[in-house]
């Protein structure tokens, strides 16, 4: 599915929740289901700076697409990471680079997370785009 379509699906999922607590319950459930990152990648090298909870992010590149895996020590953060992975994993570097990720605002995550955690969200997105840029450069230079 294209990034924009996945974003739309998520927006619809979140539109069912009237109370903030329900949204967070959903994030928590998603967070619990996030596949564990390989223990090798739970190191400082893969740690994202700027998050109040710790987040590790790792990326692989296969058949022209990026596969992200991630983990966090906080469950809500894991839920947010899960959303980002749903949207950006299995996509081409160029599509990741150009994704504007408007759904983050639409489902209210940016404005309703504390500023520090919101900075963390920005750092996550930035790091994912950096991976995309690196893979794109690699792809071009190998052509």
């Amino acid at each position: 599915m294209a990034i924009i379509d996945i974003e739309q699906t998520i927006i619809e999922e979140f539109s069912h929740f009237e109370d903030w607590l329900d949204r967070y319950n959903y994030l928590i459930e998603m967070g619990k289901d996030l596949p564990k990152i390989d223990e090798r990648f739970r190191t400082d090298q893969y740690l994202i700076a700027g998050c109040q909870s710790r987040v590790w992010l790792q990326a692989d590149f296969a058949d022209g697409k990026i596969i992200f895996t991630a983990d966090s020590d906080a469950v809500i953060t894991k839920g947010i990471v899960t959303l980002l992975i749903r949207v950006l994993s299995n996509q081409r570097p160029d599509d990741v680079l150009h994704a504007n990720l408007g759904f983050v605002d639409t489902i209210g995550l940016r404005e309703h997370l504390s500023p520090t955690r919101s900075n963390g969200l920005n750092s996550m997105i930035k790091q994912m785009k950096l991976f995309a840029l690196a893979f794109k450069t690699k792809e071009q230079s190998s052509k």
Partner: protein
Amino acid sequence: MALDPLKIRIDFPILDQMIYKRSLVYFDNAATTQKPRQVINAIDKYYLLQNSNIHRGVHYLSQMATQAYEDARVHIQHFINARLSQEIIYTRGTTESINLVASSFGKKFISKGDTILVSNLEHHSNIVPWQFVCEEKGAVLKVIPINDEGEILLDAYTEMLDEKVKIVAVTHVSNALGTIVPVKEMIRLAHLKNIPVLIDGAQSVAHFQVDVQDLDADFFCFSGHKMYGPMGIGVLYGKEHWLEDLPPYQGGGEMIKDVTFEKTTYNDLPFKFEAGTPNVCDALGLDAALTYMQNLGLSEIYGYEEELLHFATARLLEIEGLKIIGTSPQKAGVISFLPDGIHPYDLGTILDKLGFALRTGNHCAQPLMHRLGIQGTLRASFAFYNTKEEINRLAEGIITAKRMFD
């Protein structure tokens, strides 16, 4: 007379609001307290009727504003029982007060190889300014150790007081744990060696009566916004002879006597340390805040808040797996805790959605968190407008949140 928080709350309209469809519980008073109407009215009145630049004009408004500003200084003097009004220097807050002393004291009295002592409890504001001095002068910052309860080790401290120590800077009350530090005894011990002491009073002045002469503090710093006053105004108290001795901090208008391009002579205390147009409005706001606290009574405030703290400690300890961080029997206003098996940010996020204003994180005291071997805590900090009912709600909120993560 006992305080009536419900009556007090009428003076704090901000407390009466809904957050995410739940009524707000404001437990972040150590970060900043709310302001009563009386303070807001004083600020309003200043810009509606009194605004004028001070110490300059001969005109009526300027004289009235100057008078009000200087009256507020005298009020602050009496509030902390300083000997003289010129020992009260207006600043922007605790941080600026400490920077002022670190910079001016450092310039004159610190040289290569000297030692500055701070404690392991300190807020970054009472660490970083001293690091600047150490870097500039080649001095060494040493840390007075604490125990696992969050109390300063007085024996270790006494041993650290050698001839190389030029100043001790220590907090009165820990913002992260609430520990009340025995600063009077620490000052006495330092003075035996003729070492001056700066007290960071940011977290003490709002909770109990402070008497700088009784403490015998050389410098005492605090912020208006943590004691029901406005943001942007704070105080540096310094003993007159120290303030006379220290070089000025910033240069500009107000702090000078005569200026030629060859040489400037400085003004008398307190103006020597108050360069530029001061924050008159917020000084008057702070004045109103002090009046408000005095009308309630400082010992009544202390008594009621201590009751809240004991109640909260007992209530939170009933929650399975919850651990209180900072267990000194001497505490004021603050309870720091960690849930078992949930990341503090997870709990903090859900409590926010339940309407609680709490603080999560390292509370600008990273070295303290390192010492305790934790990343951070959740902190509830109290003021006299908080109630036991709100504490009950917090306990229930924590249990609700915990269930979400099971």
